[in-house]
């Protein structure tokens, strides 16, 4: 049983790497998402600059205060604004579609068709609502675990270094556990035209059957994201060592790394889905 799971795990990785090597265009959907994220980051960064201040300044003043349109205070709110926009706008509106396109392209490959971006994009746009709802569900879990667990850790460990490490590690693991359970929903929507609830249920049942394999297929690429989380945690210290503007570079790096980690997670999962479905 364990041996079979291990071989399946290795087989999926082997097929996925070959697929990504033969069709690097599978990186296109999440690269486009990265471009949108970079655009948003750029808008936040330039919001204190004239003439952008005229349009982008009032919301910042309204929510945070006028102090945060001045250097270097704007960099203290840059992560907050960017992470919230990413979680509640980019992820449900863009990432949901792009992840589905990525899964659809892998599915096409296994069905002997050329993995085409536009065909899958049109398909994903038509299924926008369930995709978006599923993404919101995952985002909510991520948001809750990254909000609640650090608070608990600070209560337990105070401001000690161990508390900082635990408040990054534990939400990460909680997120991986939940993501592994519901990650198949996107490919289920793309291939079976299911609604969000049914897709999440199907993903949950499907994932439980192969849970250790799914967990590690999600966990390995997400280690890259974990490294990036530490960059966010130590962003203030890094900024103190260099200049506050380095916060922007940190987020650019995070966005670029997310192209690789997200493409790997969803292509691996799509491969596993197709291979397991074939076996069944």
């Amino acid at each position: 049983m364990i041996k079979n799971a291990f071989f399946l795990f290795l087989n999926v990785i082997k097929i996925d790497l070959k697929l990504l090597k033969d069709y690097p265009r599978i990186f296109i959907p999440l690269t486009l998402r990265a471009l949108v994220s970079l655009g948003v980051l750029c808008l936040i960064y330039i919001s204190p600059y004239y003439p952008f201040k005229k349009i982008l300044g009032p919301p910042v003043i309204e929510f945070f205060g006028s102090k945060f349109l001045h250097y270097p205070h704007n960099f203290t709110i840059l992560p907050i604004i960017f992470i919230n926009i990413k979680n509640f706008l980019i992820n449900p509106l863009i990432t949901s579609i792009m992840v589905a396109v990525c899964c659809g392209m892998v599915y096409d490959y296994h069905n002997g068709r050329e993995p085409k971006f536009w065909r899958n994009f049109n398909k994903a746009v038509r299924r926008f609502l369930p995709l978006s709802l599923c993404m919101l569900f995952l985002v909510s879990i991520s948001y809750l675990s990254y909000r609640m667990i650090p608070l608990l850790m600070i209560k337990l460990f105070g401001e000690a270094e161990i508390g900082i490490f635990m408040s990054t590690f534990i939400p990460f693991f909680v997120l991986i556990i939940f993501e592994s359970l519901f990650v198949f929903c996107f490919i289920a929507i793309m291939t079976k035209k299911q609604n969000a609830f049914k897709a999440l249920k199907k993903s949950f049942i499907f994932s439980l059957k192969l849970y250790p394999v799914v967990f590690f297929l999600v966990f390995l690429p997400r280690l890259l994201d974990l490294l990036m989380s530490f960059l966010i945690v130590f962003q203030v210290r890094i900024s103190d060592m260099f200049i506050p503007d380095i916060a922007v570079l940190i987020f650019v790096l995070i966005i670029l790394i997310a192209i690789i980690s997200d493409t790997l997670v969803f292509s691996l999962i799509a491969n596993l889905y197709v291979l397991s479905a074939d076996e069944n």
Partner: protein
Amino acid sequence: MRIKKVILLFLIICFAAVNAGCYGTYEAERQYWLANRQYERLLQSLNQASDESQRSEIIKDKAPEVIISLRKITINYPFLPLSSQAMLLIANVYIIEARLDRAIKEYENIINEFPHMREQCASAMIALASIYKERGNWRSAEEIYENVISEYFDTQIGFQAPLLIARYYKSRAMNIEADKTYETAMNLYKEYINDNPDVPQASIALEQLVNCYSDQGEWLEAIRYLQNDIIEDSDSPLALQAMLITGTIYEAQFNSRDKAFEIYRQAIEKFPEDPLVEKIRDRLELYGE
């Protein structure tokens, strides 16, 4: 092909957007912050210097760079208030370099070009007067202090001017002049506090007034003034400050902890929510009160 064009367009827009705003106030703030950090690092290195030769070496190495960074702000953004702030720092670096004539010129430029920047002008004038005083030109120094009192008295630095005049006479043991100038200073502070009890600057005026009492050793008069004119029947933040000062005087000057703690307890009762009271509460708890 289409995607390549989109990416290229996106990069061009980002580049143009960032460059478009490069000459605004924000960029000035950025340059000032970076230059100010260089200035602070210079001061830090000087504080850590082990001997005079190392100090001279640091000044020779780092001071010109700091001046160049600050000067860029005054050249690129001559009309922004930050320029006056940068000029103040430049003058400070000149003083560190012992180039007092350049410092004087810098201070004069601030006073002439930024008369509306009250805090910066007051700082420049006080610093200028201090240079004249050091050079033995008390007449010019006193004239500048008088100007500060007439034009910028209600600024953080400006409040120092009357006390600095009095302290000069005291340091020279010119007792008649010292008494007279202390009296003038105290009247100025009392008048300001009386007219503006609720503005934040009143607390600075009160500090300077207490310094006047302290310089003359008139602790009982200080307590009497604080009790009768500020604390009594008042629940303003100034009253809290006055209570804390009174407590400190009882503790430090009269060794009367009981009396001090009684006043602290009154302060806690009267201003339970004030953050200043938190420290006092901790202190009382430490002594089991």
